[in-house]
């Protein structure tokens, strides 16, 4: 084998390298995930920390999620009425706001916002702990760092994201409703009628399934990137960026995945 690559082959080598890198990252993430599942057994370590993380990652994230949802609701109502001008009765605004909020925008926008707030927070915190040897210190004190740091965060994400999304859905719809009666001269009855028109019980389940998967994605990716941090402050910055970018992309991938799996007739 020659050590040097011919000029023409370099782009191919780059492709090969990045493909290899992709699968290597995939494998590392898989290992990390399995380690996480195994650490679930270490109940005594993560249980006391769970509530704190639920507060920190969940309850404290509600304001940003609600802020986003409220404005989304307003815009949805106005855009719906703009689109429906004349041809479609106004009460369809209710149907559009409700369906869009519950099925798509509530979970996805909250997920994206929280990938910034929660995912970045986790990656930065764990990354700093990694580079300042705090994770090693945990190990020497006989703690399983995955059970101590990762499991409570991931569980908090899985448990709290659906709760946040439920609130976001509700606020988005209420904002849309207020917009409809104040700016669109719709009556409350009309709005509610539209809201119920195409409602199906599965809508809420679907929303919650999505939210749960986003909670898992955002927190697990944040933890993984944090744990994999190398090399000082710069490394922490890199991990944080990667955590946000990767979890945002995965949220959209999962969004499409659930739509394909669960919404197809």
């Amino acid at each position: 084998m020659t050590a040097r690559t011919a000029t023409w082959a370099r782009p191919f080598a780059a492709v090969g390298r990045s493909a290899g890198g992709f699968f290597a990252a995939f494998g590392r993430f898989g290992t990390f995930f399995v380690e996480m599942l195994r650490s679930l057994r270490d109940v005594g370590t993560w249980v006391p920390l769970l509530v704190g993380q639920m507060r920190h990652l969940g309850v404290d994230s509600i304001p940003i999620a609600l802020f986003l949802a409220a404005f989304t609701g307003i815009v949805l109502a106005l855009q719906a009425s703009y689109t429906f001008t004349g041809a479609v009765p106004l009460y369809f605004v209710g149907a559009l706001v409700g369906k869009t909020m519950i099925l798509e925008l509530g979970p996805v926008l909250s997920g994206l916002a929280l990938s910034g707030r929660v995912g970045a927070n986790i990656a930065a915190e764990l990354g700093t702990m990694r580079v300042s040897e705090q994770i090693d210190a945990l190990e020497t004190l006989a703690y399983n760092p995955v059970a101590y740091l990762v499991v409570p965060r991931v569980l908090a994400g899985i448990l709290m994201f659906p709760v946040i999304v439920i609130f976001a859905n509700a606020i988005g719809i209420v904002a849309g409703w207020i917009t409809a009666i104040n700016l669109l001269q719709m009556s409350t009855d009309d709005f509610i009628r539209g809201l119920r028109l195409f409602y199906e019980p599965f809508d809420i389940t679907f929303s919650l399934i999505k939210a749960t998967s986003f909670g898992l994605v955002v927190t697990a990716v944040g933890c993984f990137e944090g744990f994999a941090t190398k090399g000082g402050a710069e490394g922490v910055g890199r991990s944080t960026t990667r955590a946000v970018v990767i979890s945002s992309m995965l949220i959209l991938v999962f969004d499409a995945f659930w739509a394909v799996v669960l919404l197809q007739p």
Partner: protein
Amino acid sequence: MIEMIDLHKSFGPKVVLNGLSLRVGEGDTVALVGFSGAGKSVALKHIVGLLQPDMGTVRVDGTDVPSLSRPDLYELRRRVGYVFQFAALFDSMTVAENLAMGLIKHGGFSKDEIEERIADSLERVELEGYEENFPAELSGGQRKRAGLARAIAFGPKYLLYDEPTSGLDPVTTTVIDRLILKMRDELGVTSLVITHDMDSAYCISDRIAMLYDGRVLQEGTPEEIRRSQHPVVKGFVEGRPELVEEGSGGMRIFANTPASRRRI
């Protein structure tokens, strides 16, 4: 008893440990000295399984550390206190909470006992009254001492110190040196101390080992090391680079460099 047997460790192409063997007898205090970047911290991390050797092994109390299962490894770590070179305090917790971490995990301490031990450990490192401070509110030396207090708080059988006195003033250094001696004399703790400070090394250790070029260049009592005629050891002990250069065949003093060159 801690035994490092023919340890090899590389990071990528960089060879750090190249056949290191060192034995710390029961109740002994051994000082490990060497140039900056020689691989002292790396060697120490192998003892508690933070790093896995490429070759060779580490035995603590006769058990083979690299092949321990996770639960057994945690069991071992409960008997070992580790003082990190840069303290590695949990910066989201107060000093007292940092100390409590090990005590809680160790089990068998009541709430009062935990408080008592925290106060006692902080007193030993002269850090009374800092219980409720966060690491960010401490000076570098104070942080180092808090890290030391955390390692000794739960009463481990083995103590691994990674430069416990670097960056401390002469008086505090002496206090820490005495603490290390006391741990040995009163509690029979077995210690491995990494240090750059030869005066400390002479004062606290039963034996001194010099790590050079990925292995132990010379090991002996403090007196033997002080009188060593090996140019590198002599140069190191007396702080004379020209001797080291001569002893290493004109190569640079940074010990791992020749080994690295050989590998590539």
